[in-house]
């Protein structure tokens, strides 16, 4: 398919009742928003990322998907930042409680990366895989159409290869695109994808085009240098809950919650009471919350996790260790967002190295290895 075919794809999805959302530029970042036409896409832009750093930069070409990932993830559509979960009305016979019918919105996600497909699989497990199913997530997820786009470049913060989540989109998409200099190679993942693909100006790819796409995808894989050694990681963390390094991280961590907000798998939330002015109608709104918030662990007026070290430990051990116990996989997909968007550049892969190198509470080795790993990551 030629690049112009993208507009046909967006139109076809819209005509099928989908609200098409995808990458667009807002406030000097690539975010996910409504896409009406290819002109909304960040054509010719890329993102420079490092720990604590994110900048947009012009590309030398006019690629539509020549960036990595921004601060947004698709969870904002499947698990919205604010959701009405219930409401209550005061009538003659007292309070009556209702739960809303899930919003029948149909999203088509354009530009889902392999790590993001993995994140969606992980949130499927959280919201759909247990004894309780979240109605909002279920409704949105079951209707969603996924157009994946293979990465053709990687950021220094990427480590999907360590988490076995990318960079190649293998499954869980309706359509998958690989962008090359001559257009897009399309793979069809589902029957629904087939139906949409039939409406597009496509022809069978020739071997040169297939090779070109493979080279482009391989380029992304080759660019990934960051590693997270997951070997025995669960036990490493759970056996070191009292390690002094948690306190060392807390000296840097601001407990700002950025890492949890940008993480495509973090799912913590709280429900707030929102009464109207009469007090006779109350909406119960669920909003994203974070284990870094002090009052998140409040129990009878005092927080269980009173220190930043205990909150960072909660986040990291959940993400990389206890997630396995709960959901059968790591909670990390290696997208690197928490590294990029941390205002002080805390990098969980480095913190794991520090913990691994100093297991046994050896304080002298701790400071040495910090210097080493800092060197190694420079």
């Amino acid at each position: 398919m030629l690049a112009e075919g993208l507009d046909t794809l967006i139109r076809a999805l819209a005509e099928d009742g989908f609200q098409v959302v995808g990458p667009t530029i807002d406030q000097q970042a690539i975010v996910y928003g409504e896409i009406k036409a290819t002109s909304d896409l960040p054509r010719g832009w890329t993102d420079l990322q490092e720990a604590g750093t994110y900048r947009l930069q012009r590309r030398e070409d006019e690629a539509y998907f020549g960036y990595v990932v921004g601060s947004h993830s698709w969870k904002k559509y499947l698990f919205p930042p604010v959701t009405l979960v219930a409401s209550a009305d005061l009538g003659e016979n007292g309070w009556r409680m209702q739960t809303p019918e899930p919003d029948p919105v149909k999203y088509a996600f354009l530009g889902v990366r392999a790590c993001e497909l993995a994140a969606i699989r992980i949130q499927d497990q959280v919201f759909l895989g247990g004894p309780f199913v979240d109605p909002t997530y279920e409704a949105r997820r079951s209707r969603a159409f996924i157009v994946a786009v293979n990465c053709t470049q990687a950021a220094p913060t990427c480590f999907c290869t360590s988490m076995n989540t990318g960079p190649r989109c293998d499954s869980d998409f309706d359509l998958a695109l690989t962008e090359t200099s001559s257009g897009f190679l399309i793979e069809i993942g589902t029957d629904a994808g087939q139906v949409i693909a039939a409406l597009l100006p496509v022809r069978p790819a020739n071997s040169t085009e297939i090779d070109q796409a493979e080279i482009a995808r391989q380029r992304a894989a080759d660019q990934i240098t960051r590693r997270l050694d997951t070997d025995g990681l669960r036990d490493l963390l759970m056996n070191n809950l009292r390690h002094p390094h948690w306190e060392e991280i807390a000296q840097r961590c601001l407990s700002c919650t950025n890492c949890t907000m940008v993480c495509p798998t973090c799912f913590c939330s709280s429900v707030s009471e929102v009464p109207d002015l009469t007090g006779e109608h109350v909406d119960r709104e669920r909003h994203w919350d974070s284990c870094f918030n002090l009052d998140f662990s409040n129990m009878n007026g005092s927080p269980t996790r009173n220190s930043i070290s205990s909150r960072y430990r909660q986040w990291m051990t959940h993400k990389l260790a206890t997630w396995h116990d709960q959901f059968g996989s790591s909670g990390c997909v290696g997208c690197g967002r928490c590294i990029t968007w941390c205002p002080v550049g805390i990098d969980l892969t480095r913190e794991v190295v520090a913990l691994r190198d100093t297991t046994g509470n050896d304080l002298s080795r701790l400071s040495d290895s910090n210097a080493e790993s800092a060197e190694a990551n420079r």
Partner: protein
Amino acid sequence: MTSAITAPRFDPWRTHAVRVARKTPEVPGVFTCDLAIQEATVASTYRFAPGQFNMLYIPGLGEIAISICDDPQSRGSVAHTIRIAGNVTHALSELAVGSTLGLRGPFGVGWPIDEYRGRDLVLVAGGIGLAPLRPLICHLLAHRQEFGEIHLIMGAREPSGLLYSAEYSAWQDGGLNVYPTVDRGDDSWPGHIGMVTAILDRLPLCRPAETVMMSCGPETMMWYAAQIAIDRGVRPESVYVSLERNMNCAIGLCGHCQFGPQFLCKDGPIFSYNRVASIMKVADL
């Protein structure tokens, strides 16, 4: 489409309108609220297991997890013993009989009682921790022949803090050995003074390896009770504790009540000591 669609399931946010049928003062700062589910079809099918909890909801103020303290066989209303601790419990204490509020539940995993028919049981309760054990006690009294010796050690700060004390003699008559004890006694209190652990220390256990301990109370109390029970030959996997953390959604989707690899609302609040021992003494987990 790329999804794991399943048949429509029950909506975990569905909240039933309930009416305050009765309010009973218990010990100071604690009261019991009997709630009648308004919708007849829901009321007639509502069942719970001993140890489970409900989310009680006051619109505009919020929800709170309260364990059910009723006899699992009782019908018509569901009793909750509540300690006044925060906004919602305070508002609950001020609700008049006849007021409406919301209830979601039951949630959580109850006491694993069916696994332990034929065994000797030691129940250890502290303060309001007796509330979630009361449905179990009702169940045991109704099925007394199915179990061996049953001991209940109940601790409170002072004699006036002994929850459900009016029922102890009936429980004793029903075949439970009830051992109330208080931290602080006086001359008007003829009973035992000391921690539940002191009684547990010298409790006659005929067959410790066949004995099951179930405890609910302050974590520190449960921890040392577990140590003593295990020292005395009770198997660690037969020791159960009921843990407490902040619960928000009650369905394992909000993250608030996480404790190591568990969500207390969904995987607990009752755990075998085995499962949580390694993390119970990790501060601020």
